[in-house]
């Protein structure tokens, strides 16, 4: 079984269903639009901020504010790419054609990841430039220290979120179950765990909390996170690897 054949097949699959287009379009639109909105509001609020808040003011990170919501569409993309196979019955055709289950799963993830990376990077750059335009005099420049890293990191963050979702969907198989766990987790639970002082120390090791560190350029004054931007992204990558390994083991062991 030549892997290139399977990659080509997975590309045909991903480009021939509507969910790919609408999930990714939503991710792009929400991230950019919400980022612009919050950037605009922040510029307006700047004059009313305390000295302390002004010191922590991170125009780059603010322009990525839309990702908190945009990542949910990325999660839907990742979940549907994998779990559609199960919910539609396609998995039986797929595994009859490609009985090497590892080749099948990793090719699928590779194709979807490539697409998510392209879309994520584009979204991140557009979000940055449009967000900075809204920030006016408070804006950051792409050449400023750490900014380019944050913008590229934003694209990587969206990609890793999608990959994590693919791994979870491969473990759970059901789209409803996967979304029912991932959406509230990333939208609510993780934020609560990360902001309540009792759980903060655990919360910051969650994939989104750790991963989003890469998008920060200005370190908040009271920040005591034990990892830097790349360290945070590394923690997120470990979550992704764990989810995908879990998905692979599930696929390998279970009946289709």
């Amino acid at each position: 079984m030549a892997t290139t054949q399977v990659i080509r097949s997975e590309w045909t699959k991903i480009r021939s269903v509507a969910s790919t287009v609408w999930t990714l379009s939503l991710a792009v639109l929400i991230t950019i639009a919400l980022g612009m909105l919050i950037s605009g509001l922040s510029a307006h609020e700047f004059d009313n901020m305390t000295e302390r808040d002004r010191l922590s003011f991170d125009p780059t990170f603010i322009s990525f504010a839309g990702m908190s919501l945009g990542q949910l569409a990325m999660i839907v993309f990742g979940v549907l790419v994998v779990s559609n196979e199960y919910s539609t019955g396609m998995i039986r055709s797929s595994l009859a054609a490609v009985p090497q289950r590892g080749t099948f799963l990793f090719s699928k993830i590779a194709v979807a990841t490539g697409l998510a990376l392209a879309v994520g990077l584009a979204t991140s750059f557009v979000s940055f430039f449009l967000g900075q335009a809204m920030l006016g005099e408070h804006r950051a420049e792409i050449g400023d220290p750490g900014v380019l890293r944050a913008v590229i990191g934003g694209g990587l963050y969206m990609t890793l979120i999608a990959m994590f979702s693919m791994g979870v969907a491969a473990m759970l198989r059901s789209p409803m179950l996967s979304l029912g766990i991932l959406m509230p987790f990333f939208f609510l639970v993780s934020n609560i765990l990360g902001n309540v002082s009792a759980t903060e120390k655990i919360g910051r090791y969650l994939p989104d909390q750790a991963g989003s560190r890469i998008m920060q350029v200005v370190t908040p004054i009271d920040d005591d996170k034990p990892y830097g931007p790349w360290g945070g992204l590394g923690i997120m990558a470990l979550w992704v690897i764990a989810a995908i390994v879990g998905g692979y083991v599930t696929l390998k062991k279970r009946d289709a």
Partner: protein
Amino acid sequence: MSRFSVGGMIELEGLTKRYGEKVAVNNLSFTVRPGMVTGFLGPNGAGKSTTMRMILGLDHPSAGDVRIDGKHYHQLRDPLTYIGALLEAKAWHGGRSAYNHLLCLAQSNGIPKRRVREVLETVGLTAVARKKTKGFSMGMGQRLGIAGALLGDPRILMFDEPVNGLDPEGIHWIRNLMKSLAAQGRTVFVSSHLMSEMALTADHLVVIGQGRLLADTTMADFIERNSKSYVRIRTPQRERLLDVLHTAGITAVETGNGSLEVDGGKAEQIGELAARHGVVLHELSPQQASLEEAFMQLTAESVEYHAHAQGAPPGQQAWGESWRRS
């Protein structure tokens, strides 16, 4: 001269599938051979689909082994070119077009695009090839599944309940397709819960019930052994007729409901004997025990230990209803 001189064998050895306590497939051993249609017959829930899924490597056997030309399914390079299968359940994404569904399968096995158009033509779906498959009728779905099976021009074809949902024209078409594939020297393995369907298409018959092998025989043998004809007679002058028949060397058996049965197709002879001796007959009818009944008797034994109504006249209800577990 057959197209495929070697290969095309499916060999099952002690194949077993357990789901917890329940044994869905129980120690199945048989071989499916090329150049003929092998019918895989059994009531619903007998384990036919599970067996077929294990052949394709979709389900893992609990014990035993199944090989295609001596290899495990996952060892086949580009498996769609060895064995093509129509599965019972829908196995495609409804949001994808028929063309793209077949294209992604073809690409994964290095099958050229041209072949996708060919099989769409063969199954008669060219006109709707670009339409999303969720709008397909059940019959169109079966045709798409068959197109997928034919895609790799494989020497083994496996069809799970292929006539389901097809209209009469479609049923006629699939029967002829299976026969012509077998005539080309291919292996055709087709499951059904309908004996009558098998009688029309299969050359060889594998019967299972409750996951166990009940028969592995040629269709001709099965028919010869099981389709006995007899004559049913009802008469108010029972003793006298029995005497007459006895004298003529004909053995009649009394049945529970007051009629007599005589083996073989001797209706004319019995009628003439009765007329000559002035015996009144209320009924003299040649009967044929159907293959359906023979199949029911065969499979009924495998479910004997389940409580069910005894003595229900066979053939008057959808078969299987009396013994299918409720």
